[in-house]
């Protein structure tokens, strides 16, 4: 499982390190083995590769210089923010440069009238909402790691969070990006306006997992903090009743800000870790949050409460204030780490199914786990069918890690056959690239990689991620010698 690659101290990288030191400063270029090993993995710690060179960029120019030198030397680079990704998207290349962006952490003043803010990629997700709060504004995407994850990483992975059922994902909240392309050219995609003539390359860039370039500045859309927020915690004796409540809510035309579900094992773990006081004996709990205008939230909240009772909820708790709400969320947001309390090791999975198939998929998942003698704790964004099965295993038991990895893979295939996806928010990264061929045809993947070829014909930006096999880009097609007929006619660039 662990692939510990030795750094390739080749003549090529040695020469590149010298050039980088001259360009960005000696203190920002690391090649010492013990130092660079700090960066050998991201949040998915079961894959490790030691990079040859680490660059600690502190300015856009450092990024441009680094990328240009990599491009000239034909050396791959991997951009990294806080390194909290869960798919190995920031796994270094052994013979390449790891470009660390976490020192690029400036925020411009909040533009309250436009409800926008411009930030550097190393800025921590939660800082944006912190800066926006005095204006009654907030940054909507809220991955559970928001205390530590960076905006640049959020953009690379198109990060989601508990509230994306109502508010959408990172791609719905980024208006503009300054991007250093893999040849060092700087382009501006999107901007402060909602639309611009031309292809929506911003939309294509967000979620491209560092394979199309490096964002050095991002303009984010802020949302108005809603007038009212109400949160309830509901305990059930069966998963079916919990899932049924979610279906009833959606069928009634209610769009909650969040609907989160945890099963018995996940509840047990959260209790052990943070004593969140979830209903005792619950086989499943839902955390349901509604927000919006006060009258709307009150009316719909009462409706949801009735629906929960009709589905045999045995305990319904309503958060009386922000502190109680925070406690309800604490159990949910700490769930991944909490599983460490009930299992020596665990494997976090991220898959999506059509929400209506929740009960049957959970039953099948249980059957698959039983077959392998493993346990799976389930934490998920129930409103949009985004599952986070946590496969529990014990490293000390021979072969169990391998069994767990296989089960996690089987669960993804179950997601695909159910009409879903292998990732809802963690990204494909290194971990799932071999599964892409199960969800997409070779034609689909080749077509996607046409975009890669346009941005990065040499394939040096985060190689080995997202796609099972790189597409050879070949010559730049249509590259013309001499003037294009439209330009020759004096119409170029305008019509």
């Amino acid at each position: 499982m662990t692939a510990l690659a030795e750094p390739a101290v080749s003549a090529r990288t040695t020469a590149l390190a010298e050039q980088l030191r001259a360009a960005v400063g000696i203190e920002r270029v690391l090649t010492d083995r013990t130092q660079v090993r700090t960066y050998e993995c991201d949040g998915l710690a079961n894959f490790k590769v030691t990079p040859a060179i680490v660059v600690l960029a502190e300015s856009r120019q450092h990024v441009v210089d680094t990328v240009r030198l990599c491009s000239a030397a034909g050396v791959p680079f991997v951009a990294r923010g806080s390194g909290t990704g869960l798919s190995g998207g920031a796994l270094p290349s052994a013979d390449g440069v790891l470009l660390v962006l976490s020192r690029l952490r400036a925020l411009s003043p909040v533009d309250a009238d436009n409800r926008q803010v411009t930030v550097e990629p190393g800025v921590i997700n939660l800082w944006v909402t912190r800066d926006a709060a005095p204006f009654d504004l907030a940054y909507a995407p809220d991955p559970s790691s928001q205390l530590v994850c960076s905006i640049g990483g959020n953009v690379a992975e198109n990060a989601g969070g508990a509230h994306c059922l109502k508010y959408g994902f990172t791609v719905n909240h980024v208006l503009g990006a300054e991007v250093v392309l893999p040849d060092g050219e700087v382009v501006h995609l999107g901007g402060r306006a909602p639309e611009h003539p031309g292809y929506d390359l911003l939309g294509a860039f967000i979620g491209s997992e560092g394979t199309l370039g490096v964002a050095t500045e991002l303009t984010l859309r802020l949302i108005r903090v809603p007038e009212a927020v109400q949160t309830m915690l509901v305990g059930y004796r069966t998963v079916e009743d919990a899932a049924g409540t979610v279906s009833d809510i959606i069928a009634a035309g209610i769009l909650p800000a969040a609907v989160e579900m945890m099963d018995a094992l996940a509840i047990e773990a959260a209790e052990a870790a943070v004593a969140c006081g979830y209903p005792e004996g619950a086989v499943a709990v839902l955390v349901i949050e509604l927000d919006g205008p006060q009258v709307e939230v009150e009316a719909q909240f009462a409706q949801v409460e009735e629906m929960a009772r009709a589905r045999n909820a045995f305990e319904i708790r309503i958060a009386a204030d922000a502190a109680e709400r925070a406690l309800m969320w604490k159990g949910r947001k700490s769930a991944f780490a909490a599983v460490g309390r009930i299992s020596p090791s665990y494997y976090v999975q991220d898959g999506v199914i059509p929400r209506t198939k929740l009960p049957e998929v959970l039953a099948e998942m249980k059957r698959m786990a039983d077959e392998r003698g493993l346990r799976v704790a389930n934490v998920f964004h129930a409103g949009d069918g985004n599952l986070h099965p946590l496969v529990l295993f014990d490293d000390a038991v021979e072969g169990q890690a391998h069994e767990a990895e296989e089960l996690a893979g089987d669960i993804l295939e179950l997601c695909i056959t159910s009409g879903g996806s292998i990732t809802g928010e963690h990204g494909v990264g290194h971990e799932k690239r071999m599964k892409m061929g199960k969800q997409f045809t070779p034609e689909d993947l080749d077509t996607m990689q046409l975009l890669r070829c346009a941005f990065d014909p040499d394939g040096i930006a985060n190689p080995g991620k997202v796609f099972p096999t790189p597409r050879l880009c070949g010559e730049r097609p249509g590259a013309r010698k001499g003037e294009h007929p439209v330009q020759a006619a004096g119409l170029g660039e305008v019509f």
Partner: protein
Amino acid sequence: MTAPALTGRTGGPDDAVGGVVPAEVVRPGTVEEVADVMRAAAADGRTVVPVGARSKLTWAAPPESCDLLLDLTGLDRVVEHVAGDLTVVAEAGVPLADLQAQVGGAGQLLGLDPPEDGATLGGVVSANASGPRRLKYGTTRDLLIGITVVLADGTVAHAGGKVVKNVAGYDLGKLFTGAHGTLGVVASTTWRLHPVPPARRVVTLELPDAAAAGPLSITLARSTLTPSAVELIADADGPARLVVLFESIAESVAGQARAAVTLLGGGEESEDLPEDFGRRPGGADDVLLRVAHAPASLSAVLAALPAGASVAAHAATGVSHVAVPAADAAESLPRLRAALAPHDGTAVVLRAPDGVRDQLDHWGPVGDALDLMRRVKERFDPERRMSPGRFVGGL
């Protein structure tokens, strides 16, 4: 090597796109037939312009050439509507109105409301058309969750999927949105739906002039009110109105409408939308523009419009549709674009009378990513046979 293609018919003046009459018009009925047609066109190097209901043919520049007009109205099946998941799969030729009627039966809607009569899903995607409710639901890029495209060489490719939350692979749906058929053919689309709100309340405020809408829209945007649309409707040098639409449960829209009247310092409440709500401004004699800008710059944008302009501004979003007199459009448009620049603003020509159109720079300045866009075009359509010349920079 040439696949058996459908028999088309000879193109006529009624089939012209931007004055270019196609040699042939072909109307496939399935995605596979589209692929067959594209392979055949590739084999003999013909240029192809895909169209739907043809309601927005003027929204892009005229093509340099159109050997084959690919009429997609035969791809008219709603493939799968899963009400419980709030998703629908529908082919590109399905009219938006038909889709709304079908999903409306389950109390759902697709949150897109461009007014063009008969517009198909493929056309709405390819032209990135939007209307007033973009404030609440966003636009195609926010609602399209999966896409099937056919490339110039006949390759059929999918991206996205049938689930709302999905980050596997590149999002080709966004790339094809607003691409006006220059990268390939949009053949099928998958959408996220929303529930139809049970109640509606409209607040209409007469304004002394259009400019008053700027500060009011900022006030609304900074409030906790959640309107579906905030529309400034202003006739050329005539009356101006701000129409604020609330759509939710009855208690909510009643309370919000009252609050809006207080916040705006006036306004009439009603159940019904004014007849001209959501329509494009002006008439056939005008030049119709889509203007986009930083949302809070609406006042400055309105002040920069040429005399005689009529406006339908999606006021809190930063997108407006503006009709300007055609007579001096060749002079007024560059001036307007210069005035918009500090607000990250752009103006795109959507329609212009014959004789005026070819005096206008259709797309205006594109910025520093144009060369990258050209590289994207060259990868997807290396022979430059898809709607050549219709897009920015002559792409």
